[in-house]
């Protein structure tokens, strides 16, 4: 019986006879509510939060100051120049959009596949998705140069009768990312309503009563509300699922539809999607491992969750490695000299350093996750996922820069060098990401309490008595 398990070691045992509990069996409904709500309810966050927030906010302010500088001076402040006109802004855009993939994968696809372990981490991952998409959306917006014309990205009827090129993947991108941002935000907020109601019911100060009250939309937790809520959540999940595959496929079209060797390959859509999920999970892990320790969520986000995510990282990392390999195979097998040159140039040309950072971080180190001991070692996990974050940024750098800097015409070859503004803007985007994330940790229910209660071990045993408590739990 799951309820007889008392120690963490037993809880993590892989005895196939027993159904593995998804959260620590020592938790009950009340302690879930207490653990999660307490994070948002403490009158003052811990000192470490202030320190982190100060750093993140300074970086964010620096980012916006640099954007101001960019607007005043023009795009010459970046290293983008002939022949590499897509420098850091596009690299950063693809990087952040990729990060944003884990949220919807966890919330929508794992939901439809009834992977109930997702409940402990989905809120977290969805929040991360939204913030990553915010960072991603920033870069194409400022990359247009004259940013007061950024609305030209959208097909707005205008007196010039001028439209974006509907045959261009750059326009499809606007729709793909726009849809993704909207649906992710809706999904995140919708899933949060019962938990916001819990916070509302427990709120002490007038301001938080009003704010949580407004945003919980008058949720009472009646059976009828739950019925409709669950139906709508399912529909939203079904709507969001294709987006996991479509967004990064369309982003990959930005490259694949061009004729440049190294970009013009049919493998790009699946390769990009696998890479996106890979980087997304790595980022979830990067945030989750410290946060669960810091906020005492070890019983809700258990070692099993960490291990499961590490398995996903291993699987998608191997897919990415396979894609790297197959690109070389096709370059040779196609017999196309330009194609062969590009890939040899990647591995042994002037950007070989970036290429080998990418390969070692994305393909070699994640292979360590074949070992259970490493999957369950938080420190090593942290090191590996950090390396994956680095590696996935370099993957986009390698794709964008190596192909552009050495194309068909040797006379136009060049070597892209980022400027200080490039590097500081990349750093600043991390600042923006962490600022939003720290605010999320401070004010919102960071774990989906209502959903976690639905998968508590009590539900699995035959001794179960009475229906599970509804959300808003503590009345």
């Amino acid at each position, binding site marked *: 019986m799951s309820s007889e398990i008392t120690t963490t070691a037993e809880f993590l045992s892989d005895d196939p006879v027993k159904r593995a509990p998804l959260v620590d069996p020592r938790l009950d409904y009340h302690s879930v509510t207490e653990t999660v709500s307490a994070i948002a309810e403490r009158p003052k966050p811990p000192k470490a939060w202030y320190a982190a927030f100060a750093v993140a906010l300074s970086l964010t302010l620096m980012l916006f100051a640099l954007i101001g500088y960019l607007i005043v001076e023009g795009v010459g402040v970046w290293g983008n120049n002939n022949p590499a006109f897509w420098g850091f802004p596009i690299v950063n855009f693809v990087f952040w959009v990729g990060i944003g993939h884990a949220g919807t994968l966890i919330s929508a696809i794992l939901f439809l596949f009834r992977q109930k372990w997702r409940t402990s981490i989905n809120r977290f991952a969805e929040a991360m998705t939204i913030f990553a998409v915010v960072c991603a959306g920033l870069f194409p917006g400022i990359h247009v140069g004259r940013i007061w014309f950024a609305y030209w990205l959208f097909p*707005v009827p205008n*007196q*010039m*009768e001028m439209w974006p090129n509907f045959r261009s993947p750059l326009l499809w991108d606007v729709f793909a990312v726009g849809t993704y941002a909207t649906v992710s935000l809706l999904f995140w907020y919708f899933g949060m309503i019962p938990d916001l109601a819990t916070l*509302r019911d427990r709120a002490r100060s007038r301001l938080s*009563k009003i704010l949580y009250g407004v945003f919980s939309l008058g949720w*009472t937790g009646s059976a009828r509300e739950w019925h409709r809520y669950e139906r709508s959540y399912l529909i939203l999940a079904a709507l969001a699922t294709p987006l996991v595959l479509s967004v990064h496929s369309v982003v990959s079209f930005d490259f694949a539809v061009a004729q440049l060797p190294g970009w013009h390959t049919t493998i790009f859509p699946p390769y990009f999607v696998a890479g996106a999920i890979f980087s997304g999970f790595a980022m979830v892990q990067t945030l989750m491992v410290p946060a669960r320790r810091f906020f005492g969520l070890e019983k809700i986000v258990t070692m099993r969750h960490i291990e499961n995510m590490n398995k996903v990282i291993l699987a998608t990392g191997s897919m990415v490695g396979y894609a790297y390999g197959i690109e070389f195979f096709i370059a040779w097998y196609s017999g196309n000299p330009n194609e062969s040159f590009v890939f040899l140039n990647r591995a042994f040309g002037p950007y070989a350093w970036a290429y080998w950072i990418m390969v070692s971080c994305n393909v070699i180190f994640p292979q360590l996750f074949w070992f259970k001991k490493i999957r369950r070692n938080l420190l090593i996990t942290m090191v590996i996922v950090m390396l994956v974050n680095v590696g996935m940024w370099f993957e986009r750098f390698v794709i964008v820069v190596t192909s552009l800097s050495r194309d068909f015409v040797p006379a136009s070859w060049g070597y892209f060098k980022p400027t200080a503004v490039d590097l500081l803007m990349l750093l600043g985007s991390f600042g923006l990401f962490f600022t939003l994330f720290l605010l999320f940790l401070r004010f919102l229910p960071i774990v989906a309490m209502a959903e976690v209660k639905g998968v508590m071990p009590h539900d699995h045993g035959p001794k179960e008595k009475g229906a599970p408590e509804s959300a808003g739990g503590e*009345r």
Partner: protein
Amino acid sequence: MAEQIFPKWTNRLRTFLGLGAAGAGVFVLVLFAYGASPKTLNVGYAPDQPVPYSHAIHAGKLGIDCRYCHTTVEKAAAAAIPPTRTCMNCHERIRPESPKLALVRESARTGEAIPWVKVHDLPDYVFFDHSAHVTRGIGCVSCHGRVDRMDVVTQTQPLSMGWCLNCHRNPEAFLRPKDKVTDMAWKPAEPQAELGRRLREEYGIRPPTSCSTCHR
């Protein structure tokens, strides 16, 4: 239940919020479609001129050809504003004492140009050539309206990019015989579509629509 901090009337806010959001959408749409359109902003521009010169009298009643004053229109990009000398050709004898013409006489004496206010003013980033249009069967009236009926010159067309493209994409609807270009009152004797098609072929009209046609 938790303490109710929202009084009952707040339920009604929902309706207002919904209506407000829908209303805001419509407002923005209307604002951009109509309010910010050159049709609204530019059409009807009729600035006061330093001399109360009436095209209705000169071009309409007296029937002076456009090109008598705007001499360069068939040869150059700009349709020249005539020098004061052109006015004085007639007005040395006709109404030489009229107080309305005081500024014209002064200009003739001092050589200082009359500060006419430009009505049809295209942005500086647009290249436009009058000669290319009036020598290929586009009438003055197509862009400037019935100037021969205007006491004060008024902009009748939006002169927006979409408006230019409207003709460049479909010149048949506006072509006329070359000898009717300055005829303000001309009406086609046959259906314009047929005439336009024939003239387009005859004159070899292939209006370009690429960016660099106008933005050079």
